[in-house]
């Protein structure tokens, strides 16, 4: 596990055209990494995220993505993701192909990917609209005859997570709401992690969620790297920013202006947080 700056990690490991999962369920969303991908102008990415959230809204609006796999694409508690809608409804800034699943299907798909299986199983009773537009197929349980839905595994080229701590060896500790982040990490061909802090020892409880260093391609220390999402034990979710994003992202011009003024004009995440007056 090499320790490197986030800009080096993205430069070395994320290539145009790759599938990139940025996971973290409301909690620990890797915003700093998403911004760095925007700064480095990656193109034609296949973004994978259960809840695209503001981070995918920004990356899609900035033209990084040509495809999105997701299960719920809103601004939680606020409303629409306007850049996501603009891409789907009006092909701006470019067409976006979507692969849409349910949360449970995404969970099964990541779990299958993490388990080295080509697919996973769920109960299935009747076709929904998603079954009709999507890829899943039914098969019969060889024991009970029950109808089951087979869900194709997801194995991202790169998975990026944010976490609280890394130790000197590069083992990473994640605390709190985890979503399918661990499965997304284990399913990936390359795993990048940003952390709030590097510590001598993790001092993790016995059954803590730790990603062993030898599974990780690069660790970068980025305090505040989940903002406006949060890192349990470090800082809370910036609910106010989530509310304000609705007005920022509603119109193309204001969105572009904001991205220029804050994300592109900042060398790194620390500078962005200072511009946002979140950090001193």
């Amino acid at each position, binding site marked *: 596990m090499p320790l490197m700056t986030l800009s080096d990690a993205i430069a070395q490991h994320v290539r145009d055209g790759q599938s990139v999962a940025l996971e973290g369920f409301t909690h620990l969303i890797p915003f700093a990494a998403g911004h760095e991908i925007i700064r480095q102008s990656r193109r034609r990415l296949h973004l994978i995220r259960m809840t695209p959230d503001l981070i995918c809204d920004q990356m899609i609006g900035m033209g990084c993505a040509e495809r999105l796999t997701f299960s719920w694409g809103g601004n939680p508690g606020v409303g629409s993701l306007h850049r996501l809608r603009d891409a789907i409804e009006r092909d701006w800034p470019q067409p976006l192909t979507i692969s849409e699943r349910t949360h*449970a299907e995404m969970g099964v798909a990541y779990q299958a990917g993490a388990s080295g299986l080509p697919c996973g199983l769920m109960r299935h*009773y009747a076709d929904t609209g998603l079954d009709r537009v999507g890829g899943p197929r039914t098969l019969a349980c060889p024991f009970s005859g029950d109808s089951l839905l087979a869900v194709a595994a997801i194995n991202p080229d790169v998975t990026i997570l944010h976490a609280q701590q890394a130790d000197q060896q590069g083992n990473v500790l994640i605390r709190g709401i*985890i*979503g399918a982040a661990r499965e997304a990490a284990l399913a990936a061909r390359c795993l990048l992690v940003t952390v709030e802090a590097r510590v001598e020892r993790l001092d993790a409880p016995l059954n803590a969620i730790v990603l062993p260093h030898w599974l990780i391609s690069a660790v970068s220390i980025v*305090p505040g790297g989940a903002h406006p999402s949060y890192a349990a034990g470090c800082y809370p979710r910036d609910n*106010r920013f989530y509310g304000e994003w609705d007005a920022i992202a509603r119109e193309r011009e204001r969105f572009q202006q904001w991205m220029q003024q804050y994300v592109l004009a900042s060398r790194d995440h620390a500078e962005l947080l200072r511009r946002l007056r979140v950090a001193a």
Partner: protein
Amino acid sequence: MTVTAARQLADAAVCFVGIGLPSAACNLARRTHAPQLVLIYESGTVGARPQVLPLSIGDGELADTAACVVSLPEVFAHYLQRGRVDVGFLSAAQIDRHGNLNTTVIGSYARPAVRLPGSGGAPEIAAHAREVLVIMKQSPRSFVARLDFLTSCGYLGGAGERARAGFPGRGPRAVITDFGILRPHPETDELQLCAIYPGVAVDAVRAATGWPLRVAHDLQVLPSPQPADLDTLRALHAATAQAHAVAVRINLRTADAPASHPH
């Protein structure tokens, strides 16, 4: 509407909660008549007892107050699909006369007029929870004759089609709206108006419904909400607004901090 929805919840029920109105109703119930209600959010927080309403389904408040935090694959497989959830609480952009729900698109799927957030956890909640409560505002645009997209199954085409398909959950037991409560007819599975708030005219409800709405022969008038319930709900919303308005400050020097274990 929130108070009426809360009243539908029995104490000690295990409830899989969506964000927004469902979450408000569940937390109101937990603070009033149902203190032992077990709330499960799809973020994997099981037995959450939030002090303020979460803005997102994964707020730290939910994890900090939960009996346990499990992964999303686990919460859907081990709790929902395993049949441990009594009540699923949903909302939607469109509902049809058989309680089927659309949260995906208005217009065509390929080129929608309005792209909605999508399914999230709703299709499996609708399938597996022993019963489903739906809470949504009633209008001809939301209570439609035909869904633009079938995201989550209610009673499908009605008349027992859901039961014949083998769904483990019984489907929507009640749809709570700003006019009253609709429930499925025991034979046809068609939603009919069963209860109205004081002062609501049946014709107004019909006008807000995109299909010819049937009215139960024993239409009830709901009691006015208890002042205590309204006070509790207002206090909850006020505490929530205050908590969410706090400015976040991040200390960039945490990177150099010693190995103290955040607990």
